[in-house]
């Protein structure tokens, strides 16, 4: 197996393992999931080890094209640094799996846990192995997602949920910024390939967008590594199960940020901006983290703040821009991982055995947990920087670098003091951890009263890590030395400095600083000891300044309260403002381009006004304005006036040479009027007296609407006039006129356009009508009248009462007499209108008319019978099956169109010819007529369906009432 495939397998294996573990979700195989995870981690470790010889020679690359045109490829690349981190991730991963196998409760659904853990491991490996910076950001985000899932593993606990969400939000913000930063970086470098980016360092640092990219990338890195001011999520993430804390929040994920800084160190570092930004973040984190750690009462809280502080240390080192500092940074990342992970595990054991992590309740555990206690002590000592442990060496390197001058700024000047002070804090909290937990009197009322040593294999990981601390601390050059060197060379290349990992460098400034820190730390603890035993959680000055609370409050305020306020301000759920906006937009869209381009309307020529035509529109305008005026209180009047405007429109169509339009408009108007009347019955009564419009605001609104209406009116007027005065360029019109007869076989050009040239439009149009009819039908099937319209109309009540109170009359006499004579005439009109419909249909192709007009006419014939006799009478006699008409119509239209295929022509190609018929002579037969028949059929069906559906509502409520009445009688 080659190195490349090993590399790919290394990244994929954890994900496959994750899926496999997820598949175990339904089973009870807890142990199986743990074993499988262990095998995966072990396999990763072994593979990594095998890769070392190749990596030592130079980076191993694995490439698969993903989005090559944009430079995003699935490139994996293992160099020394990546190798070191891979070892860390897989190695500690293995230990954590072993630990978790015993840590997690018997009842826990652990397959889920291991599934997430393995996926996280894969993502983390992805980060360190990415050879493409965008791919890196992909894995970066994946670690955020899986850490969210891991922290919230016990999601029934509010703390876990909140902690998880905060971690995700903070690192998510960082991730988005990181992506943007990396994009800029990639474009400056001309490639997203890591090697190319690292090689383009000079160009990057000189680019005007350098600072932008730097800031964005730093936000990503600093949030992930919990640096001030983004540190607050980490302590809250401690709600996670301890293995998660040990793995993610000490050894791996929080290292991703500093890892990235190391990774991009050759490309980004060395500038003043870098020094200041990274330095300030690092130094403040170093100090504040250590300070906060001293005052924690929760074991994991202490470790969390300690982690923050140590990450600050690493960041500070990286800020310095000196190669030796970079070496120290890499080295300290490893060291911190080992001792902090072991400490978390130890804390987990303590928690597991005693049931609490509160240092105020813990005491004297050494007698119960001697082995764990000793291990914790060694690890703590490493954390405190005690000689002969790994933490000491890297800390010495840090102190050495702290006294060097790098950019000659105030940071340089304060750094030695800060470093020493932080060192002292670190000693103090380490000491406190050991002293409080393991020494002193035996604990009283622990949740679990009899603590004892954990199972053998649960302690094993701690033992192993502590051993590593010792080995590295005592013989650094023989243990980690070569591997560290490979890593350092991979980062620094030919800038690799001379450095020494020796334990003893003689008495020098760093050693003096260490001594001061050690002594100062012990003294500090001695002073604070009693206070700490009693005080509340958190440092004195900042106790109430809890990052979590602030974050939650800010988040709720911004993302919820402000958002809701803004949503209601910037949007609306009411219709009127929406239509107002649409009207305004339409007006502006028409006017602004004309205004910008300097359009000047032509002056009107009054000479050509036909006075009769003007009179017609005087009538029409009065009707339109009258309808607008009356529509609120006098609905019927408005409807009648609307009819007046419609009639004027009709006359206009005739006047201006559009007889087809006139006929269609008239027929449509008749049906529309009846439709609206059918609906009017269900609207609430409205009387003018309840006018509440005197309010000033309402008047203001009306005035605004009035202005808008006038504006739209004037706009349309000007626009219409301008365009009517502009003769249409004859691009297509004459084509239709020329060929309607010769090729379309009809003299009515409009009809030929409708059924032939643009028959496809007509097909769509009848579909619209059909759809609407179906929708109307569906809606009315569920129609439920408002309570105040269920009762019969007042007129009917009066007339029924009249019939009822006279002995000689029976119910319904009034209406029977009312319709007796008219219905006779209306019935006799039925065959007449049918004949007329056929007439309109037949002549359509040559003269005004056509399928649509005929269809509506036919529908009116039916409507008339419903008017004359009512629903029951009409349906007793006429069985109209509207859906059949509609379906037939649509299919007929399509079939006509498809028929052309048989002759090798496109859809809707028409064929017109004259046939000789006996007695009659030549008669035109056009396939378009068949199409028009389809239109006719659909229009009849749809119109009748709409009308009938509406008309049926009256008798439906009658039925409901009848049922109710009979029920009341029974009762």
């Amino acid at each position: 197996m080659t190195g490349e495939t090993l590399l790919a397998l290394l990244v994929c294996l954890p994900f496959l393992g994750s899926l496999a573990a997820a598949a175990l979700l339904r089973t009870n195989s807890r142990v199986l999931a743990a074993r499988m995870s262990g095998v995966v981690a072990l396999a990763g470790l072994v593979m990594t080890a095998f890769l070392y010889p190749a990596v030592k020679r130079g980076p191993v690359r694995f490439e698969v094209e993903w989005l090559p045109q944009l430079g995003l490829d699935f490139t994996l690349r293992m160099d020394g640094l990546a190798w070191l981190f891979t070892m860390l991730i897989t190695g500690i991963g293995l230990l954590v799996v072993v630990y978790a196998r015993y840590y997690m409760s018997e009842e826990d659904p652990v397959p889920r846990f291991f599934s997430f853990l393995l996926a996280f491991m894969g993502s983390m490996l992805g980060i360190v192995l990415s050879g493409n910076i965008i791919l890196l950001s992909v894995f970066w985000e994946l670690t955020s997602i899986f850490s969210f899932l891991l922290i919230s593993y016990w999601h029934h606990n509010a703390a876990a949920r909140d902690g998880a969400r905060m971690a995700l939000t903070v690192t998510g913000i960082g991730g988005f910024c990181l992506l943007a930063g990396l994009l800029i970086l990639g474009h400056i470098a001309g490639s997203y390939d890591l090697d190319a980016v690292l090689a383009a360092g000079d160009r990057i640092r000189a680019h005007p967008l350098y600072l932008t990219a730097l800031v964005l990338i730093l936000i990503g890195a600093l949030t992930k590594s919990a640096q001030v001011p983004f540190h607050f999520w980490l302590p809250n993430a401690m709600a996670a199960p301890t293995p998660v804390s040990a793995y993610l929040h000490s050894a791996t994920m929080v290292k991703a940020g500093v890892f990235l800084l190391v990774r991009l160190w050759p490309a980004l570092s060395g500038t003043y901006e870098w020094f200041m930004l990274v330095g300030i973040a690092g130094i403040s984190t170093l100090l504040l983290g250590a300070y906060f750690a001293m005052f924690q009462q929760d074991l994991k809280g202490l470790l969390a703040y300690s982690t923050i502080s140590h990450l600050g240390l690493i960041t500070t080192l990286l800020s310095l821009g000196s190669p030796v500092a970079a070496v120290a940074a890499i080295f300290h990342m490893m060291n911190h991982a080992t001792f902090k992970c072991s400490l978390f595990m130890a804390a987990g054991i303590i928690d597991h055995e005693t049931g609490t992590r509160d240092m105020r309740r813990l005491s004297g555990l050494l007698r119960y947990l001697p082995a764990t206690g000793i291990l914790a002590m060694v690890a703590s000592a490493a954390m405190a920087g005690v000689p002969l442990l790994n933490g000491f060496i890297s800390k010495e390197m840090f102190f050495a670098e702290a006294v060097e001058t790098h950019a000659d700024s105030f940071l340089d000047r304060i750094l030695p003091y800060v470093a020493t002070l932080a060192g002292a804090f670190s000693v103090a909290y380490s000491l406190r951890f050991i002293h409080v937990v393991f020494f002193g009197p035996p604990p009283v009322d622990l949740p679990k009263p009899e603590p004892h040593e954990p199972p053998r294999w649960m302690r094993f990981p701690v033992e192993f890590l502590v051993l590593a601390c010792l080995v590295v601390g005592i013989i650094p050059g023989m243990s980690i030395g070569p591997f560290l060197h490979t890593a350092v060379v991979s980062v620094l290349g030919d800038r690799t400095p001379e450095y020494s990992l020796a334990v003893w460098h003689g008495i020098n400034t760093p050693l003096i600083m260490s001594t001061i820190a050690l002594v100062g730390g012990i003294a500090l603890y001695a002073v604070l000891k009693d206070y700490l035993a009693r005080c509340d959680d958190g440092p004195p000055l900042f106790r109430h300044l809890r990052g979590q609370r602030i974050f939650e409050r800010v988040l709720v305020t911004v993302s919820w309260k402000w958002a809701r306020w803004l949503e209601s301000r910037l949007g609306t759920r009411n219709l009127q403002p929406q239509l107002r906006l649409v009207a305004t937009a339409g007006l502006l869209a028409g006017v602004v381009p004309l205004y910008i381009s300097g359009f000047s309307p032509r002056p009107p020529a009054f000479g050509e006004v036909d006075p009769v035509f003007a009179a017609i529109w005087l009538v029409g305008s009065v009707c339109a304005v009258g309808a607008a005026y009356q529509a609120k209180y006098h609905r019927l009047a408005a409807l009648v006036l609307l009819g007046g405007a419609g009639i004027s429109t009709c006359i206009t169509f005739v006047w201006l040479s559009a007889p087809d339009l006139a006929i269609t408009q008239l027929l449509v108007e008749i049906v529309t009027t009846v439709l609206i009347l059918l609906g009017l019955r269900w609207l609430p009564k409205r009387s003018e007296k309840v006018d509440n419009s005197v309010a000033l605001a309402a008047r203001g609104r009306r005035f605004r609407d009035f202005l808008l209406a006038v504006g739209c009116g004037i706009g349309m007027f000007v626009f219409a006039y301008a365009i009517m005065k502009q003769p249409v360029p004859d691009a297509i019109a004459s084509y239709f006129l020329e060929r309607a007869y010769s090729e379309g076989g009809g003299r009515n050009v409009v009809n030929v356009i409708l059924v032939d040239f643009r028959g496809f439009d007509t097909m769509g149009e009848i579909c619209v009508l059909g759809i609407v009819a179906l929708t109307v039908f569906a809606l009315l099937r569920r129609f439920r009248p408002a309570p105040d319209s269920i009762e019969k109309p007042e007129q009917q009540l009066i007339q029924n009462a009249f019939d009822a109170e006279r002995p000689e009359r029976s119910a319904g006499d009034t209406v029977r007499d009312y319709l007796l004579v008219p219905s006779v005439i209306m019935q006799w009109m039925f065959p007449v209108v049918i004949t007329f419909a056929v007439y309109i249909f037949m002549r359509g192709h040559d003269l005004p008319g056509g399928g649509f007009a005929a269809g509506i006419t036919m529908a009116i014939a039916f409507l008339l019978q419903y008017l004359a006799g009512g629903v029951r009478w009409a349906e007793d006699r006429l069985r109209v099956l509207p859906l059949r008409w509609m379906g037939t119509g649509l299919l007929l239209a399509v079939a006509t169109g498809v028929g052309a295929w048989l002759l090798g022509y496109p859809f809707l190609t028409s064929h017109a010819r004259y046939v000789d018929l006996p007695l009659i002579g030549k008669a035109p037969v056009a396939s378009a007529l068949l199409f028009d028949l389809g239109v006719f059929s659909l229009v009849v069906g749809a119109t009748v369906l709409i009308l009938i559906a509406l008309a049926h509502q009256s008798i439906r409520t009658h039925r409901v009432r009848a049922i109710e009445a009979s029920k009341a009688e029974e009762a």
Partner: protein
Amino acid sequence: MTPLDHAAGLPAWAAILVSVFLIIGAGLTVIGTIGFVRLPTFYERIHAPTLGTSWGTGGIVMASMIFFTVLATRPVVHEILIGIFVTVTTPVTLMLLARAALHRDRAEGNPDVPSEPPVPPSAAVQAEKA
């Protein structure tokens, strides 16, 4: 635009006849609507438009028939259909509308309209038997 160029060849007698019918028809119609506007009560007003629907329409139908018949030199009679339909349908609307008005007036207790007609005794007796 000069309308009626097509009518230049129309014989004078036809032109006069057409004109007379046109003026009569349009005149009756407009007189009807004047009455419609001026008359004081609804029941009086319903009489006015019937001028338009009877001989108002008749006049213009006649004018149109004569005009096109002479112009096309063959009988053009389809306008008669308009006359027939208007004559047949107008009473329907008037009847329905007037009866509706009657109801509304009665419901409001308007004293100017007659109440329901008295029932002859025979009918009352029959109803009681039933």
